[in-house]
């Protein structure tokens, strides 16, 4: 008897880094075709495609179809900040869940190599007469004059807010998180950077927005990721090998931020993540203690700390002690970002929310080679896009 479960049948990520010879359509198509091959299916099987390229011109889903197969299926172009990839995955998931189709393809891609600081606002002023514009009736750009819109600065404040609330976190601790992720990256051949740094090197690197130095910021790079999803009923008709390698999506959750007092001045990345985590654990019927590995959205070292708490990997308020215990290193009790995380694996924005699922699937399939977390059965992938959107997927190894 088939259930209404949805499975990941095939999944792939390109090498993250600098791809001077490929554009976003090339990278997306490469990942998509590799995901189809990994699942042992073709475009002829797909009933839906959902794709995102945040910095692109739009229409990436149809551009991918033109590269790899135009079959007339519904194509969704999604844009949801850093949660774009997770949103694409969830669109394919929902299409299958609704009974509209048995197979779906989700793709995320971005080219960010050489892109500088990502900030929120800048505007041109003619300098002749003051003109009020924007939601605050400002006479010139507010970024830098009324606080910061730059991402390293915003997420620095997110971490410092946690430090203020609970104590125990300082510059060295945040840098320690970065030290861990860079160390993890040395085992990931697809990471943009695979270089281990000492704590001193990280703390003495170029300061971007205290306490985030350059090594503590996500790496702008190019990359694509894609996943093929299948219904439980259809999976049961496929080969034993396909069924054995399939990874169950035990929960696919997307939240936005509920109103909180301070959310107009500092994005609240906590409440929506906590809510998504609560919903995901309830849906999957597991607790955080059941997780064998977690890929969470360490867009900055300061962000990783708060998500230990938000994902309930530690006691409320206890994220600093939790990190100091060594729990989140790959040999700890709760390995976090064994891929190297966004700080070293890289963060091609729209690809990130599928690439983190790929990392978890890789371990659940026991195919992660040198960095394999032994015996991994359940994992969690988390992304957050400012605005805000939070995507969480809980993934489980096939019982076969």
């Amino acid at each position, binding site marked *: 008897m088939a259930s209404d479960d949805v499975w990941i049948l095939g999944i792939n990520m390109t090498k993250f880094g600098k791809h001077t010879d490929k554009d976003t359509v090339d990278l997306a198509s490469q990942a998509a075709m590799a995901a189809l091959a990994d699942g042992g299916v073709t475009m002829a099987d797909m009933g839906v495609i959902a794709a995102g390229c945040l910095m692109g011109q739009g229409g990436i889903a149809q551009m991918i179809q033109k590269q790899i197969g135009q079959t007339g299926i519904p194509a969704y172009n999604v844009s949801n900040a850093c949660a774009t990839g997770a949103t694409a995955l969830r669109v394919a998931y929902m299409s299958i869940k609704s009974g509209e189709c048995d197979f779906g393809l989700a793709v995320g891609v971005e080219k960010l190599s050489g892109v500088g*600081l990502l*900030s929120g606002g*800048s505007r041109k002023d003619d*300098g*002749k*007469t*003051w003109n*009020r514009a924007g*939601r*605050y*009736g*400002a*006479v*010139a*750009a*507010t*970024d*830098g*004059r*009324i*606080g*910061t819109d*730059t991402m*390293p*600065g*915003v997420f*620095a*404040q*997110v971490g*410092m*807010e946690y*430090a*203020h609330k609970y104590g125990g976190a300082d*510059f060295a601790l945040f840098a320690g998180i970065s030290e861990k992720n860079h160390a993890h990256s040395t085992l990931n051949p697809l990471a943009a950077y695979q270089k281990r740094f000492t704590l001193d090197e990280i703390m003495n690197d*170029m*300061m*971007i*927005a*205290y*306490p*985030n130095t350059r090594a503590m910021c996500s790496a702008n790079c190019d990359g694509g990721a894609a996943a093929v999803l299948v219904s439980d009923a259809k999976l049961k008709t496929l080969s034993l090998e396909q069924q054995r390698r399939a990874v169950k999506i035990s929960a696919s959750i997307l939240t936005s931020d509920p*109103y909180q*007092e*301070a959310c*107009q*001045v*500092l994005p609240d990345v906590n409440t929506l993540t906590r809510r998504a985590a609560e919903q995901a654990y309830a849906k999957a019927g597991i607790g955080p203690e059941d997780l064998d590995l977690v890929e969470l959205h360490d867009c900055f070292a300061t962000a990783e700390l708060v998500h230990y708490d938000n994902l309930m990997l530690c006691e409320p308020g206890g994220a600093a002690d939790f990190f100091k215990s060594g729990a989140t290193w790959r040999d700890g009790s709760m390995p976090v970002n064994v891929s190297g995380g966004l700080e070293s694996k890289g963060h091609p924005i729209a690809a990130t929310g599928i690439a983190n699922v790929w990392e978890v699937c890789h371990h659940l399939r026991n195919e992660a080679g040198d960095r394999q977390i032994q015996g991994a059965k359940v994992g969690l992938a988390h992304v957050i896009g400012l605005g805000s959107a939070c995507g969480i997927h809980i993934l489980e190894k096939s019982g076969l």
Partner: protein
Amino acid sequence: MSFALPRGCLILKTAPVPEQIPFVEYLQLAPTPHLVAHQCTSCGARFFDRRNACASCFGTSFEDASIATEGTVRSFTIVSFAAPGIPVPFVSAIIDCDGTSVRGNLTNVSADPEHVSLGMKVRLTTYTVGADEAGTEAVGFAFEPAA
């Protein structure tokens, strides 16, 4: 205020006082500089920009509320890389002004972690952002250490 000058009276030429306008609409310069929010009359949620309905309770009635000019630093960062034209490093902070969170730069304090701390007491101050060709000065706000 205006008054008629006696005919023939010598008028001393002094520099004209430049017209001043607030950098953002939610900054009020008179009688003393302070921030003003749109406060939901149903639930009290405060917004610095205009809203069609309250993001918290969906109420559609708002009134002006003056924000306390003193507060404590709840979070901060020291920004070393910023948009062109912004002097760095500068301190961006989230300030708890008697229950209302405000975002702003810290000023009159050295922009390093030895001089800025979580929980420090600050108060609102103003400064001239610049003048346009007509000589009109835009006045911005920031927060400075409160003794």
